């Protein structure tokens, strides 16, 4: 289910209505079911993965801190995982037909069980794994106080990374190894997996990994209620594309009764409206022009690449920050505060400032769970640069299993190192601080745009050919890029003006000070542009692929 769809609108109206009627405990159960429906809308089989990951990390968290599980804490996840394998992988739901007019349920019993070995394989493997885990449990409890938390943490991290590696990176690494061997003249015969990448897997594995790591670091108390933790992992507003929430921030909000506040709800509605404006009115209307240039196999001009890259710079920002705004807005209406993920990133003057403003939940995750454990900037200048490079390359790889993401990460690492090296040497003498600041922002914006070229390119060959054209064909204005739709052409200036004002006030709530007549006019303009955008071809959120 995607936010900018009629399906989601109906879904959310039902969820919100029930939410208002139910008492707190039932609110959480309903939210959990709703989150699973939201996620299962793409592919019901993915629910098994999320439940597997949830059960594994719930048990790991408790084992790290408490050293033991109650019978209920042990049996509930075991049963849930087995039931999930049965319900989502083994049963063929196509054999069940529900008709609402008139209300009728017909089941073709002969076809309800699958004939593929793979489905039975998953069920049997799950049974074996659960039995094995329960058999090993007594041995685990006997480990000493130092070994057990470490062992459980390693299990949890390896489990999460294993899941991510299997679904996301297996084919990439096999392909890369194969290419290396081929370059030596051999013909390797590796097996490639035919698996679909589960939506949002990178987001929820990072989120649940941070949960166990924080418990190990004694920064967080584990929850003793399985369904609370399940809701933490699957809370639908942020499930598929973040922000990557920390359990320490989200869990208390989910486990304590929430009070719906009028102002929080109105702010939530504005965030949804503004997020839809960015996504539907701008990002989707630009996509066609960007895709035309980046997907072409013909020749393109210098101006085509420059324009397409500038448009992609706007597209990816509007797409992803639009998604975050909607996610935060939806959560706010439900009384939950999600963290800010974007803070005017294109106003950054340096690389480090950019990463404090862009995809903040990922950059702080990488900082806290990768950069700092590597030593951060505590082990001398050279190690700092190395740590920055490692963090950014892995951050690039997090975005996707392709070499251009690795190069994008490398590029971002180099920028971070360069800016760190040149710190305080970047101002131009004779220019006022204001103009120095404007120039620095403009210069870094150009560097950011080139980074997006690396990110968007379909292959390394395209990176090389586009870069060559950018250097050698300067001024070739032979345009073949299609014109973006009207909503994008009108929406972009509106967004730029809005953000300049927001930057000037240095306050995301500045619009609240407007008179009702001005707010009403502003919202009406946003709504009109959303409706104009709705009439364009709908596009998937870019970050769903990660």
């Amino acid at each position, binding site marked *: 289910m995607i936010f900018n769809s009629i399906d989601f609108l109906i879904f959310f109206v039902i969820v919100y209505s029930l939410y208002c009627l139910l008492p707190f405990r039932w609110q959480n159960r309903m939210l959990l079911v709703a989150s699973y429906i939201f996620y299962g809308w793409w592919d019901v089989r993915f629910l098994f993965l999320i439940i597997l990951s949830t059960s594994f990390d719930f048990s790991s968290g408790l084992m790290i801190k408490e050293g033991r599980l109650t019978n209920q804490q042990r049996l509930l996840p075991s049963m849930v995982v087995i039931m999930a394998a049965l319900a989502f992988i083994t049963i063929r739901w196509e054999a069940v037909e529900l008709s609402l007019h008139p209300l009728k349920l017909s089941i073709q019993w002969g076809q309800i069980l699958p004939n593929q070995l793979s489905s039975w394989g998953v069920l049997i493997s799950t049974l074996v794994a659960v039995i094995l885990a329960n058999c090993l449990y007594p041995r685990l409890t006997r480990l000493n106080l130092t070994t057990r938390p470490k062992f459980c943490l390693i299990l949890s991290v390896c489990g999460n990374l294993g899941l991510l590696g299997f679904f996301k990176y297996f084919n990439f690494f096999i392909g890369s190894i194969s290419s290396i061997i081929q370059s030596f003249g051999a013909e390797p015969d590796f097996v490639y997996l035919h698996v679909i990448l589960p939506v949002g897997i990178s987001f929820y594995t990072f989120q649940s990994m941070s949960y166990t790591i924080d418990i190990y670091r004694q920064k967080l108390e584990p929850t003793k209620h399985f369904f609370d933790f399940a809701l933490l992992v699957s809370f639908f507003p942020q499930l598929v594309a973040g922000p990557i929430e920390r359990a320490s921030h989200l869990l208390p909000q989910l486990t304590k009764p929430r009070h719906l506040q*009028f102002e929080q709800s109105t702010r939530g509605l504005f965030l949804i409206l503004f997020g839809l404006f960015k996504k539907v009115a701008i990002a989707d209307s630009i996509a066609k022009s960007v895709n035309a240039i980046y997907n072409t196999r*013909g020749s393109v001009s210098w101006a085509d690449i420059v324009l397409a890259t500038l448009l992609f710079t706007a597209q990816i920002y509007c797409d992803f920050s639009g998604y975050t705004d909607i996610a935060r807005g939806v959560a706010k209406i439900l009384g939950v505060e999600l963290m800010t993920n974007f803070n005017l990133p294109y106003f950054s003057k340096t690389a480090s400032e950019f990463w404090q403003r862009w995809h903040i939940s990922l950059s702080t995750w990488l900082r806290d769970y990768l950069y700092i454990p590597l030593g951060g900037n505590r082990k001398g200048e050279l190690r700092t640069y190395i740590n920055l490079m490692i963090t950014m390359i892995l951050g690039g790889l997090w975005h996707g299993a392709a070499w251009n993401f690795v190069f994008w990460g490398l590029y971002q690492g180099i920028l971070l190192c360069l800016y760190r090296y040149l710190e305080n040497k970047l101002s131009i003498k004779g220019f006022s601080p204001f103009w120095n600041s404007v120039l620095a922002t403009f210069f870094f914006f150009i560097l950011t745009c080139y980074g997006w070229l690396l990110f968007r390119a379909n292959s390394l060959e395209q990176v090389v050919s586009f870069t060559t054209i950018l250097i050698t064909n300067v001024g070739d204005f032979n345009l073949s890029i299609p014109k973006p739709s009207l909503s994008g052409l009108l929406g972009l200036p509106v967004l730029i003006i809005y953000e300049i004002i927001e930057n000037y006030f240095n306050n995301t709530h500045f619009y609240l000070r407007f008179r009702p007549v001005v707010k009403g006019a502003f919202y009406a303009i946003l709504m009109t542009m959303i409706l104009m955008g709705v009439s364009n071809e709908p596009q998937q959120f870019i970050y769903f692929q990660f």
Partner: protein
Amino acid sequence: MSLNNLFIFNSKSKQISPVTNALRTVFWFIFFLILLDTILNLLFPYPSDPLDVSPSQLSRYFDYGRSVEAKVRRQIGPTDQTSSPLSRAGWLNSDERKTLPTQPDSGSTLLLATYGMSFSSQVSEAVKEIDPHVSLRLIAGPTAPPNFSFTAYNLDRKKHNADVVILGVLASSLSGMDAITGMNWNPDVPPSYTFPKYYIKDGNLKSISPEINSLEELRKALKDKQKWQKFVAQMSTYDRFFNSFIFTHNVLDHSSMIRLIRRGWQQKHIESITNKIHTAKGFNPKWDQIPVLKAIIKEFTNTAKADGRVPIVLLLNDQKYDDHLFKILQTTLEENNIIYVSSHKIAPATNLKNFVGDGHFTKEANLKIAQEVLNVINKNLAKPIL
């Protein structure tokens, strides 16, 4: 009062409760939405004269979501001459066909009959531009699907002495095989002409004829509620793209905002159908019209050969379709020795430079495809053109 005070509450402003503030904002929001709706309607009206074929881009943009029925009614004048050119195009029973050449013109040595759409007509015109010894008999419907082209060919078979017949198949028009009119699968600018829908029964091609077969019949039906309902009922049964919210004219047509919403719905509706027919990987071989297309191509080739003509299947792979059309037909073409020209290598669909803004091939691309058509004609004709 300063400009700032006009927009922003100052500290001395009377404090109002958040609920009152929100209610006022909602009132102004609705007020401005209605105002914008009215302004858009006044600023960008769509011309009511059916013969006015050049409304501004913005007038067209804000009109795309008008119901198909309203657009069709607006196109039709009291007579054919006072109706819009789009409504006149593509009818299979058109009298205009009688004026087309039946023999090569004086000075020409070959008559080339082409059945298809603007793409195939442009290629044929480019053939004539390269070789003036060719005369043209062009029959086309706006973005016509193969079921239109094949029917047009069959109806025209005995009416001329063409040496070469071309059946144009456009990749993006293939989905129209699931329709009986251009109205529903092309609702932005709906061409109203109709064509049969084909299916295969007992190994043979069968067809369902539309209730309306000419502009005159359409004009009458628009005034006769019963006839119109019968035609609508037929579309709802046989036209996969028909959707009553998109099709039916009602009071909502007057709001530009509702029109934008309807256009969004329209895009989603058409996308949901076309996604089952074609994806980025190619045409879905399980789509029930693929065997129909193959049968059409085979029957076209067999009948044309039986008539003593050179049949050429012209495969036009337009943007977003790469070589998908060729791929889905390659086996049929090769196994049945069908003469064909496919644009996918001559003017690749993945190269933007081969296309102009409205999606047609550039003149250069048309000339390249035409040259290949000429080569194929010369190779297969008993006597070369000259």
